[in-house]
Every structure is written in C-alpha cells, then in structure tokens.
C-alpha cells in the first residue's frame, strides 16, 4: 500500500517535472508590430523567445495591410509588443480581434504597449481635431530611435518576459545588461557623430523625427507634410521653400518609405540636401539590428 502511494507520488512528481521542463524549453512566442521591437525582443529574450514581426522596416508603419495571415501569426503569440499611441490603429485592431488569442487582447499580460516606457513628445495640450490632419491625440508615436528610449523599451520587454516566465528572470536581466553594454560600447562613436549634427537646421517629411531631433539637438524648421497624412499643398511648399532659403536649412529628412519626389523638388529649390533616413530595422537589407539602425541613421545624417 505504502509502496503504491510512493509510486504514485513519484509518477506525479515526474510528470510535473517533465511538463515544466517541456514548458520551460518551449520558447515564448513574441510578435512585434515593428522590426526594431523584434530586434530588441530577440536581444533581451535570447534563446528563450521566438520572435516574429507583423510589419517590415521598409514599410510605412501607419499603413500596413491587415492581411489575414498576420492573424495566424498572432494566434500563436504569447506576447504582442506594440508601439501604441495609435500608430497601429489603422491595421492592428482587426488582426488582434481576428487572432482568437485571448493572451494578446488589450489589457492582458500578453499585450505590451511600449509607449508607457518613454516620455512622450508632441502630446496635444488642447483639443485637437482632424483639420490638423491625421493627428495622434496621445502624442508622437515615432519614439524608438534614440538609444535612451531603446534601453527603456528593452527593459520594458525584459520585465514583461520575466513576468510571463518568472523562472527565466535572471536570464532576461543578464541579456538586458549585455545589450546595454553593447550600446555603451558604441556610445562614444555615436556621440562623436551626433556632435557634428548639433544645431543643424532641418526640415522633415512627416513629423516623425521629434525624438531624434531632440536627441541630436537638430533644429526642426518645418515639415513637408505639414498636416500628417495629408498631401502637402503647393502653397505650403512655396512657403516652406522660402523659409528654408531664409533660414539656410541644410537637410531634408525623409523616411526611406516615403516617395522622394516632393522632397527632392523642395530640397533642390531651397538649396538643401535630401537625407533618406532609415527609421526601422529592416529599412534596408544591411540594417539587421538596432545597432545597425543607429549606425546607418547617424551616417546618413552626417553625409
């Protein structure tokens, strides 16, 4: 009798150990909305995560097609890492709804809005409406480029991974430290490049460089797309060109995915130079990581 009980105990124990072992070995399935977050998740998650991304760096993150295969991707996700601040509002909600995955529904532990980790810029302080274009009422969502924000986001992801897999907390912490050490090793080089950009007057295509211009102390003089999401009028472009000439604006910064024809025209008339700048990992084939992204961005801006 006693022996049978012992046997039972051993079997139960074995089963428990085996099942936890199986669970622990199974990597967490992380899905991110942009490729930069995918790289950060891979850095802090190491071999404990398997990461997929819903959009690519060469795409405008405002306009991703809600293709149904992305629902299948989300269906298997343990964690959805998103930009928030309404950046993905035009395409992510139907994918989350269609995923039939309660882990990643809004407010669940598997839903991570990374905008909570950064200090938002361009938050409207008065009532806004769409006469100002397709504005983001919660602030500017293009926040992932400055290294300080990347560290905060990576730390946020690491924290959430640890919450989902408490047993691996030490591993995620160590991965995060390793990532930050890598960034710090690059810091002197980035600072040297940044110093040359301080105070440089720029015009940007979309108002999506606020975090970068603050980090690099660029002087934002205006925007080609003065009302977000709305094609600029010839009147506005004429005013902008006049302003650029007067202020001696040197550079026009355009994300890789925007059509360059308008920027080229404005830059030519104003005597400025167009900087086609990558804004996400994957924007170009050579940009495979966040470190590559900052390297490429600073190199482009310094050209």
């Amino acid at each position, binding site marked *: 009798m006693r022996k049978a009980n012992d046997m039972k105990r051993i079997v139960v124990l074995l089963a428990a150990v085996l099942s936890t072992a199986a669970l622990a070995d199974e990597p967490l399935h992380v899905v991110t909305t942009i490729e930069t977050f995918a790289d950060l998740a891979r850095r802090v998650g190491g071999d404990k995560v398997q990461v997929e991304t819903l959009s690519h760096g060469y795409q405008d993150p405002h306009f991703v097609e809600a293709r149904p295969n992305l629902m299948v991707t989300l269906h298997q996700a343990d964690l959805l890492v998103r930009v928030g601040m309404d950046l993905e509002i035009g395409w992510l909600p139907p994918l989350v709804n269609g995923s039939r995955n309660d882990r990643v529904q809004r407010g669940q532990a598997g839903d991570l809005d990374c905008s909570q980790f950064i200090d938002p810029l361009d938050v409207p302080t008065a009532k806004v409406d769409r006469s100002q274009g397709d504005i983001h009422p919660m602030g500017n969502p293009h926040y992932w480029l400055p290294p300080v924000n990347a560290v905060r986001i990576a730390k946020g992801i690491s924290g959430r991974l640890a919450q989902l897999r408490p047993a691996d907390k030490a591993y995620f912490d160590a991965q995060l430290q390793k990532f930050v050490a890598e960034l710090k090793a690059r*810091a002197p*080089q980035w600072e040297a490049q940044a110093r040359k950009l301080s105070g440089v007057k720029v015009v940007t295509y979309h108002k999506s460089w606020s975090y970068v211009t603050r980090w690099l102390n660029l002087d934002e003089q205006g925007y080609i797309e003065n009302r977000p999401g709305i*094609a600029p009028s010839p009147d506005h472009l004429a005013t902008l060109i006049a302003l650029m000439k007067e202020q001696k604006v040197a550079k026009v910064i355009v994300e890789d995915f925007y059509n360059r024809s308008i920027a080229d025209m404005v830059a030519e008339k104003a005597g400025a130079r167009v900087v086609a700048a990558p804004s996400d990992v994957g924007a170009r084939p050579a940009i495979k990581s966040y470190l590559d992204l900052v390297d490429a961005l600073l190199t482009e801006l310094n050209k």
Partner: protein
Amino acid sequence: MIATLVVMTALAQADAGELAPPSSLASELDAALGAQLPDAGSSVAPAPTPTNAVWRAIQSLNPDLAAIVDADFGGASGAPYSLAGDDPDLLGDSEGQPFGFALQEIEVALTATVDPFLRAELYLAIPNLSGIEVEEAVVTTTSLPAGLQLRAGIFRSAFGRQNGQHLHVQDFTRRPLVNEAFLGADGLRAPGLQASWLAPTPFFLQLSLEAFSIGAPEDDAGHLLSFGGGTRADLTYASELKFFVPVSDAFSIYGGLNGALGKTPTLRPGAPVTLEAVDLYLKYKPPNVSGGWFSVAWQSEVFVRQLHARDDTEPLLLDGGFYTQLVVQFARQWQAGARVDLLGAPSNELQPRVGRQSLALTFMPSEFARLRAYVERENIPPPTASFLSGPETWAGYLQLEVSIGAHGAHLF
C-alpha cells in the same frame, strides 16, 4: 572616407582613455537602465500628465464612436433594374426619370469591449433617409479556446466577400447586382448566430457556420428571393470556408467557398432554396509606398442558385450570376475601378438576364473623405444575344463620403 573619419574619431576617443570626459550618452543609458519603469503589469500607457483634459477624454469608458455620411448627386435615363438597400435612391417612391440629390446612407458606429470575454459592435444605418435600421448589433467572443469564436445578434453574414462589407468599404457607388438578386436588398444579414473556427494551419483557413431568422419581405421584389419564406421557425443556414495565401510581400490571394440553405418567400413560398458562391480577391500592393502608392485588386464572385419551382418532384431549376471588378490605385489620392455584372447566367424563368457595366473614379483628399464619380450602364440582353446587347439604361452619380470620429481600421 567618412567611415574612416568616424572610426578614427572613435579610436582617438578610445585612446584618450581615462583623460576623455566619460561619455554622457553612456551614463544616460545607465540611468535609463536603472530608472524605475511603470508597473510592468500594466499594458496601457500611463498619462503623460495626469491632469491633462485631453488624456481624461481619451481614458473615458465610452464606446468608440464614429459616423459615416454618403451623399450623392446623380441622374439616370430610367429606373434601375433593382436597388440594394444602401444604393442611392434618387426616385424615392415617385415615378419618372431619376435626377437630383440623395442621402445614400448615414451610418453611426459604436464599438467597445464589453468585458474580458466579449466585444460589442453596434452599427445604425439610415439608408436614403428612410428611417433607422440596425445594420449590425453583434457581440463577439474574444477568449474562446482552440481558435473558436461565436458571434450573436444581428450581423452581416460572411457569405462571399461584398456581403460582409459595409457601404464605405465598397469601391463603387452601388453594390453589385448579385447582392440584391441572391442575398436580398439588405444582403444576407439578420438576427442569428455564427460559430467560426480558425484552423491550426500555418496559413489562414477559417470555417464559419451560421443560422439566421430572416423575416418575410415587406414589398414584392418582383423577382425570386432566396430567403425569408416559410414560418418564423424556418431558419436560414449558411457556411463559409475562407482561405488566404500570401504569395509574396506584395501579392495576396484571398478566397472563399460559400453555401446557404433557406426557404423562398416568392414564386413557390416555402420551397427550399440552395445557394452556392465562390469569391476570389487577388491583390498586388508593394508594401513600400515609395513605389508610388500603386496597387491593383481584382475581385469576383460567382453565385449559383437551385430551386424546385413548382413541386418537389420536377427537376431543379438553376440560375446564377456573377460580377468581376478591377480596382487600381494609381496615386496616393486616386483610384479607378471597372466592374462587369451579369445576372441570369444561366437564365430561366427564375431570373431574366440583366447586365451592368460600371466605372468609378475615386479621389481621396485624406483618409477620412472620398469623392467618387460613378457611371453605369444597365442592359437587358435577349437570351441568345451578347451580354452587352438589349435595351439599356444609363446612370451617373457623384458620391461624397466622409467619416468622422474614431479612426476605423481597414480590413483586408
């Protein structure tokens, strides 16, 4: 050259070692690493400034509210063959030659999460100022296991492609002829229940089963109606199998096989009707918009319907119809479309042959407004002649569509 300079600067800094001032970026990174983050358990962003009135408004628990208005100006050489519920009705109840203004539809949408398990959507529509209709009022589960989902309330069936879509996602001013002819003036939508299953396949495969209680039509449609006959206890059943193939980043194939079973209210009221349809949507859209916002989408639906017209012993009568359309976005703000419709293919006493050819040119000044010019030609081809022949009716519309309120998402 620049890279060399960068490397040299970096080396110089590294060489300077202890003498150089400590990197301020590195210490900022350390500070960011050490900073207390917001509660890692919360998934939504905290208030940037907790007293901000804008933020308080965003954080209200009110449903997302949006309204869409479609207003038209148009004219036609004669009355259209049929009108879908949300087609612009220039004539109203009057006779004669249609000309003037119409308020094609006003739609008010309220959507919100109910609780951790349910989401609710309410769409009220006023087509042609004819009174409030409940276009959809539907509750959807969000947390069923095994890829299952239930929807209950009144909702648009997933039958085919255009039936599930609201007016404002149509690329043409009027719905295709097959909508009214096979699914009813308001399409296949009624109080009902839908169970659907997302198959655990590496590609998208979804099976839906639906049951509806469809009321008898108020007016005589003048032709065969598929559903709404029999008693209130006679349910209409539908089932759809949808699949999606992402051939490449740019090229997508989305299709469906659909079947429905119900009782007709016309011709031989209460007789069983079966309806089958195949829908196919092919889209080419490069993901990088710097290519010039170009996309091309080809969409087609083919319907076949069977009925014993007089008694259950005679052979099944068969009729069918289809539409095929091509829509090309050729600039950020412009798209053009062409569509060909044909009913009565094959034709018989159930359904005469009716053809329609239409063109649409749409200007989108922003994501929230559209101005569309639409021209169509309807014809009744004689049984043996070409589908383009026969008496014709021309119509043209200018359609203005605006959407206000919560930012809607685009379904594929």
